[in-house]
C-alpha cells in the first residue's frame, strides 16, 4: 500500500486560462466613457415672487435664428466674435463699483458683473450643434474672465481649480481650501445666463 502524503496539489495550470477568459469578457464589455459636457441650470418654473426690474442695458441678448445666424444686441454677429463681445459686456462696469473690471465703462452697457445678464434665445428650428457652439462661447467668456482674476489672485486658472475642487479624489483638506477661492472667483463674475422660452416662428 502506498503511503499517503498529505493532500494532493491542485493543478493551477489552467488558472491562466480562466483569468484570460475573464479578461476577455471585461475587454469586450468595457467602454471607457468619459462623459463631459456643459453644465447648465434651467430656470425654475414658478416665476420669482417680486417683480424684479432689470434695466435693458444690463441684458445682453443673443438670438439664434433657424439658419444659425446670430443677432446680438440687435446687430448681426459672427459666432467667433461672440466670446469677445460677451466678455466686454460682462466686465464693462459702468457704475464703477467693480474694481477688477477692465472694461470701457460705457454708460450704455452693463453696470457691473453681478447685474449683467446674458439672455439666450433660439428658434425651434435652430440646429443643436449651433446652439451648443453659442453656449460654449458664452460659458467661455465667463471662464476667460474668471481665469484672469484667478490668475491675478491665486496664480492659477479658475477652470483648473474648479475641476480639482469637484474631483472626488481630491483630499478634503485641499478641497476646503479651494472652496473659498472658487466661491470668491465665481462671485466676481456670477454666471447669469438665462435661457428664455423659444420663439415659435
Amino acid at each position: 500500500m502506498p503511503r499517503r502524503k498529505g493532500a494532493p496539489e491542485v493543478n493551477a495550470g489552467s488558472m491562466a486560462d480562466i483569468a484570460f477568459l475573464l479578461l476577455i469578457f471585461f475587454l469586450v464589455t468595457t467602454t471607457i466613457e468619459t462623459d463631459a459636457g456643459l453644465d447648465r441650470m434651467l430656470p425654475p418654473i414658478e416665476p420669482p415672487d417680486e417683480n424684479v426690474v432689470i434695466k435693458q442695458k444690463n441684458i445682453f441678448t443673443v438670438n439664434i435664428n433657424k439658419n444659425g445666424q446670430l443677432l446680438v444686441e440687435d446687430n448681426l454677429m459672427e459666432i467667433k466674435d461672440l466670446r469677445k463681445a460677451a466678455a466686454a459686456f460682462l466686465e464693462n462696469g459702468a457704475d464703477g463699483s467693480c474694481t477688477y473690471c477692465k472694461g470701457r465703462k460705457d454708460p450704455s452697457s452693463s453696470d457691473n458683473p453681478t447685474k449683467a445678464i446674458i439672455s439666450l434665445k433660439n428658434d425651434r428650428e435652430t440646429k443643436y450643434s449651433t446652439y451648443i457652439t453659442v453656449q460654449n462661447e458664452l460659458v467661455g467668456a465667463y471662464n476667460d474672465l474668471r481665469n484672469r482674476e484667478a490668475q491675478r489672485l491665486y496664480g492659477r486658472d479658475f477652470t483648473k481649480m474648479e475641476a480639482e475642487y469637484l474631483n472626488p479624489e481630491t483630499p478634503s483638506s485641499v478641497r476646503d481650501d479651494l472652496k473659498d477661492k472658487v466661491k470668491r472667483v465665481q462671485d466676481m463674475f456670477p454666471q447669469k445666463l438665462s435661457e428664455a422660452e423659444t420663439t415659435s416662428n
Partner: protein
Amino acid sequence: MAKFTKKKDGDLPAVSTASLPDIVFMLLFFFMTVTTMKDSSLMVANTLPNASEIKKLEKKDRVIYIYVGTPTQEYQKVFGTEPKIQLNDKFANVDEVGSFILAERAKKPQELQNVLTTALKVDKDANMGLITDIKQQLREVNALKVNYTTYEGDAFNNLQ
C-alpha cells in the same frame, strides 16, 4: 564527475510561465475597475457636438441619461427619420420625459434625489424645438441641473 557533465545537454531552460496568471490578473483588475456596463443599447444616432469649456460628469450614480437623435437604420421603418427621444430601452414622446425623470429619481437613494443631474446626449443634427420641449418637461418636474454632454474639441467644428 557524471554530475557535472549532465548539465551540458545543450537545451535552453524553459522560460517560467508561473507568473503569467499574475500578469493576466493585473490586466483583469485594470479592466474591471475602469469598466462601466452599458445598461441600454443605443437606438438613435448619437454623434455629440464638440465643446471646449466642458466639465466632467463625476459620480455616475447621480446621472440620468436622455438620448435624442434620429433612429438608427433598423428602426427607421417603424419610427421614421425624425429625431426621437430614447429613454432607457425604448422610444418615448416628449410628454413621457417628466414621468421618466420622476420614476428614475424615485429609484435613487434618498440622499441623492436632490443632487441628480440630467445628461442630455443629443445628436448634433437634432433641432432645438425638441430640446426646448424636453427642457420644459424637466423644469416641470424640477430637474433643473442639466448637462449637455459633448465631446471635447473645438466648438467651431460643429458649424461645418
